[in-house]
C-alpha cells in the first residue's frame, strides 16, 4: 500500500469522531461550493435529484482516486473505478485505472476486454483491437471477441480486414442451439462489410442469414434495404425499409409508454437513473475498498505496524462508515496495543450501534473491562452470551471478568 496522501494525514490528527466529521464536512463543502459556483448569479434550476447526483459523484471521485492509489493491483477496484469514470465521461481515466491493474495482472481477460470496450466506445479503435486481440489470446474460447474485433475494423473503415476476421469464424457454426458466438451479429457485420465493399450479392446473402436467426434485427432490415437498392430491386428494398420503420416505430412507442408509465419528466428520469447508477458504483467501490483496507489493516497489525494500521483503518471507515467490522477491528488494534482505550471504546460502541452482534458486544465488553468499568463490561458481555449462548469464549470471558481476574 502506498503512503497516504497529505489530506488524509491532516484528517488523522485528533479524535476519530472529529476526524470523520471533518472528512464529511469537507465532502459537503466541496459539493456545496461546486454547486454554488455553477449556480452563481442564476436561479437554481438544478433539481434536488441532480444535486444529490452531484454530491455522490464528487464523493466517488475522491474515493476512486484514493483506493486506486492504495490498491493499484486490485482488479475489482479497477473495474468499479473504471465504471465510475465512464459514467462521468472520463474514458482516459477509466482506461488508465484498468491498464494500471493490468500491469499487476497481465493475464486478466476481463481487464483486457474492459479496456478494449472503453477504447472502442471512445473512438480509440486501434487500442480496442490490440486489447481484444490480447483478450482473445488469453481466452480463445470467447468467440464473440471476433465480432468485436470485426466491428472495430469496420469503425476504422477497414472493411476487408473485418470481413476476413468474420469469414474465418463463421465456418465454425454448426447450428448449435446455444452457440458460443452470436452468429446473427457476425452475419450482420459481414453483410455490412460487404455492403461497404460494394459486394452486394454477398452483403444480401449474409444480411438475410442474420435475419433468419434474428428476424427482429432492425438494422439488419435497414442494411438489407440499402443493399437491395444497390441491387436495383426497389420492391425488396421497400419491403425491408418498411419492416425497419415499423420496428423503429414500435421501439419508440415502447419507450414512450415506459416513460408515461413512470409519469415523470424525461429529465427527472435521467437524474434518477444517474443516481441509481452512481449509488450502485459508490456502494461497490466503498465495499471493495473498505474490505481491502480491512485486510491490509489486519495484516499490518499482525506485523506490529500499528501506526500504519491505524491510518489504514481510518481510511476504511472514511470510505465505508456503515460497516461495524471496521470499527471493531480498529478498536481491536488499540486493545492489542493497550493505548487510546477511550477512543477504542467509542469505536466499539459505534460497532454495536451499527450492528448489535455478539462479536461487537464482546469487543465492547473487553474494552470496558480494560477501562476498569467492570459493571458495564459484564452487562455488555451478557448481551453477547444472550445472542450466542453456545459460544464458550463469551462464557469464559464473562467468568474471568466476574472473578475479577487481572485485565
Amino acid at each position, binding site marked *: 500500500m502506498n503512503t497516504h496522501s497529505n489530506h488524509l494525514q491532516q484528517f488523522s490528527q485528533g479524535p476519530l469522531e472529529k476526524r470523520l466529521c471533518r472528512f464529511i464536512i469537507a465532502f459537503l463543502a466541496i459539493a456545496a461550493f461546486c454547486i454554488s459556483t*455553477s449556480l452563481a448569479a442564476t*436561479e437554481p434550476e438544478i433539481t434536488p435529484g441532480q444535486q444529490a447526483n452531484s454530491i455522490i459523484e464528487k464523493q466517488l471521485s475522491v474515493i476512486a482516486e484514493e483506493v486506486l492509489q492504495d490498491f493499484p493491483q486490485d482488479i475489482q477496484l479497477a473495474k468499479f473505478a473504471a465504471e465510475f469514470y465512464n459514467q462521468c465521461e472520463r474514458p482516459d481515466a477509466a482506461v488508465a485505472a484498468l491498464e494500471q491493474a493490468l500491469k499487476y495482472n497481465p493475464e486478466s481477460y476481463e481487464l483486457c476486454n474492459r479496456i478494449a470496450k472503453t477504447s472502442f466506445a471512445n473512438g480509440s479503435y486501434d487500442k480496442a483491437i490490440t486489447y481484444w486481440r490480447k483478450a482473445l489470446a488469453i481466452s480463445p474460447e470467447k468467440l464473440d471477441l471476433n465480432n468485436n474485433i470485426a466491428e472495430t475494423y469496420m469503425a476504422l473503415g477497414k472493411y476487408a480486414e473485418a470481413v476476413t476476421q468474420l469469414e474465418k469464424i463463421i465456418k465454425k457454426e454448426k447450428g448449435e442451439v446455444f452457440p458460443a458466438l452470436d452468429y446473427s451479429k457476425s452475419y450482420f457485420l459481414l453483410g455490412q462489410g460487404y455492403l*461497404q465493399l460494394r459486394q452486394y450479392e454477398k452483403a444480401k446473402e449474409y444480411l438475410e442469414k442474420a435475419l433468419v436467426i434474428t428476424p427482429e434485427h432492425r438494422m439488419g432490415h435497414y442494411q438489407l434495404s440499402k443493399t437491395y437498392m444497390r441491387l436495383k430491386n426497389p420492391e425488396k428494398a421497400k419491403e425491408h425499409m418498411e419492416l425497419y420503420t415499423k420496428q423503429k416505430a414500435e421501439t419508440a412507442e415502447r419507450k414512450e409508454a415506459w416513460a408515461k408509465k413512470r409519469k415523470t419528466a*424525461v429529465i427527472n428520469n435521467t437524474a434518477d437513473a444517474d443516481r441509481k447508477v452512481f449509488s450502485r458504483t459508490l456502494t461497490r467501490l466503498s465495499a471493495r475498498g473498505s474490505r481491502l483496507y480491512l485486510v491490509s489493516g489486519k495484516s499490518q497489525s499482525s506485523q506490529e505496524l500499528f501506526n500504519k494500521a491505524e491510518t489504514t483503518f481510518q481510511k476504511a471507515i472514511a470510505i465505508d462508515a456503515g460497516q461495524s467490522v471496521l470499527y471493531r477491528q480498529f478498536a481491536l488494534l488499540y486493545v492489542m496495543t493497550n493505548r487510546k482505550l477511550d477512543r477504542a471504546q467509542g469505536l466499539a460502541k459505534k460497532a454495536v450501534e451499527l450492528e448489535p452482534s455478539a462479536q461487537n458486544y464482546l469487543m465492547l465488553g473487553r474494552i470496558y473491562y480494560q477501562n476498569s468499568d467492570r459493571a458495564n463490561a459484564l452487562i455488555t458481555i451478557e448481551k453477547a452470551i444472550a445472542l450466542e449462548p453456545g459460544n464458550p469464549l463469551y462464557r469464559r470471558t464473562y467468568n474471568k471478568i466476574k472473578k475479577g481476574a487481572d485485565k
Partner: protein
Amino acid sequence: MMKSGYLSKNSSLRYSMVAGLIFINTFLTVCANASISFTDVTKKTGITFKHSDGNSEKFHIMETVTAGLALFDYDNDGDTDIYFLNGAGLKGMKYETPPQNELYRNDGNFKFTNVTAESGLGDTGFGLGVAVADYDGDGDLDVYLNNYGPNVLYSNNGDGTFSDVTKKAGVGDGSNFGAGTCFLDIDNDGDLDLYVAKYVVFSYDKKATIVKGGFLAYPSPTAYVFPADSLYRNNGDGTFTDVSKESGIAKYRGTGMGVICADYDNDGDTDIFVANDSMENYLFQNDGTGKFEEVGLMAGTAYDFNGKPLGNMGVGCGDYNNDGLLDFYVTSYAVEWTTLYKNIGDGLFEDVTFATGSGEGTFNNPTWGTGFADFDNDGDRDIFVAGGHLQSNVEKFSDRMTYFVRNEIFMNTGDGKFVNITDKAGEGMKVKLSSRGIGLADMDNDGDIDVVVLNSRREPTILRNDTTGNNHWIKIRLKGVKSNRNGIGAHVKVVTKDLSQLDEVHSGRGYQSHHGLQLHFGLGEHKKIDRIEVKWIGGTVDVLEDIKADQVITITEGQNPIK
C-alpha cells in the same frame, strides 16, 4: 568478372537513381501537402464584432447553437462583405448595449468597415441561421434571418441600406427556434422560395438543464419536442405563402440544424438536405413541382454507415471526386465522426468517411460549420471544418474534451481521398476557439478562397489563404434571366482537358450560414478552360468555350446557348 563488375556498377547507379527519384517524389509530395496555408489576419481587419450567446448562465439550449454568418456583396461593388449573426439577451439577462448582428463592408486588402448602423441590418433578435438571395429579382441581395423568436426578411434598397419587409412578405414564421435556412426555387417558376429549418420547441417553463460530473450543463435536443420545418412559396409579388403542408415537408418533425439545397439526383430540380441533431437526417427529394418525398433512409444519408443517427450540425455539398455527382459532408457532435456521403448515382449514397480519411481528427469534439472549396486551386475540392464544444465548462467533467479547439482542414489528394493537414496549414489553423458558422469566399479577390469563422462568445477569425504555388483558377457569377437572378440551383461544369468539375449555386449552407453565390474553380496548371456549361434551373443550358483562366466572368442566362 568485368561483366559482373559492370553490372554491379550499373546496379548501383540504377539504385541511386531510384533512390533519388523516390526522394524527389517524397519531397514534392511533402511540398504539395504543405502548400495550403492560412494566416490569421483578424486583428488587422478592423473588425470589432464579438459574439454573444445570450449569456443567461441558465444553460438554455439556444446558447449552444448560435450562430451563422453570411458572406455576400451587399453593395454590389464586386467584393465580398461580411455579416455576423449574434445572440440576444435571454430571459432574465439584460445587456447595457444589446448584442446585434453586424455588417462589415469590404474595403479591400482585408480591411473592413462596420456599416451596421447605416445599413439597417443590426438585427437584435436571437440570431441563428441566415440566407442571402435576390428574392424579389431587383438586382441586389436580400437577407433572411432565421432567429430564435420572430424571423426577419430584410430587403436590400439598392443603396447600401435594408428595410424590414417581414410582415409584408409573410415569412416571420411565428416565434420559433430557428436554425439553417435556404432560398431555392422549389417549382422551377423562376422565383426563389424559402426553406426554414427549426431546432426544438423551446419554452422557458421546461427545465431541461442537466448535470454532468456534478456541474450544470446544456441539455440535448432530445429533451424537447421536435418541430416541423417550414417551406414558403414565393408568390412573385414580394409575398410568400406557407406551403409546408402541401409540399410534404410538414409531415416530418426533426431537430433541424444545417440545411443545404442541391439537385443531388441531377434531375433538374432542387432537393433539400436537412442535417438533424441526434436523429436521422432528412433528404427531401423534389418531384419538380415543389412536392417533396423524404428519401434519406433509402438514399443512405440518414445515418452513418453503421445505421447510427448522429448529432448532425452543418452540411456542405460539393463534387469532391469530380464524378459529376454532388456529395454531402456533415459535421456532428462529440464522440462522433464527421460523415462524407459519396453520391454513387441512382439517388444513392455511401458513407465513405473512413475510406477517404475525411473524418480524421474530428471525433473528440463537436464540429459545426463546413464547406467544400479548392483551397490550393489544384482542381479538387478540399474540406474545412469548424470545431468547438458546446458545453462551455466541458473541461470540468471530461478528461479529453475542451471548449476551445482548433478547426480542421482536409486536403483532397486527387484520388478520392483526404489528408488532414491542419498541423501544416499555417499559423492561422492554430487558433483555438469554439467556432460555429463559417464562410468560404475569396475575400481579397486574389483567386483563392479565404475563410471567415464565427466563434461563440468571442471575436471572429479571419483566415487569409496564403497558399503558395502557381495554380490557376476561375470565378463565375451567374445572372439569371428566366430563372432566379443569382442562378441559385444552377449546375456549372468546368472542363479543362482531363479535368471536369461540377458545382452548384447555393443560398444558405454549412452551419446556418451563407456563402458562395460566386462559384470558384481551381484549375491546376491549366491556363485555359475548354468548356463551361451552365444548366439553369428551368432547363436552359449555356455553353462557353476557350475561356482564359484567372479571371471573374459573369454568365447571363440564355446568352450562350448550346450549339
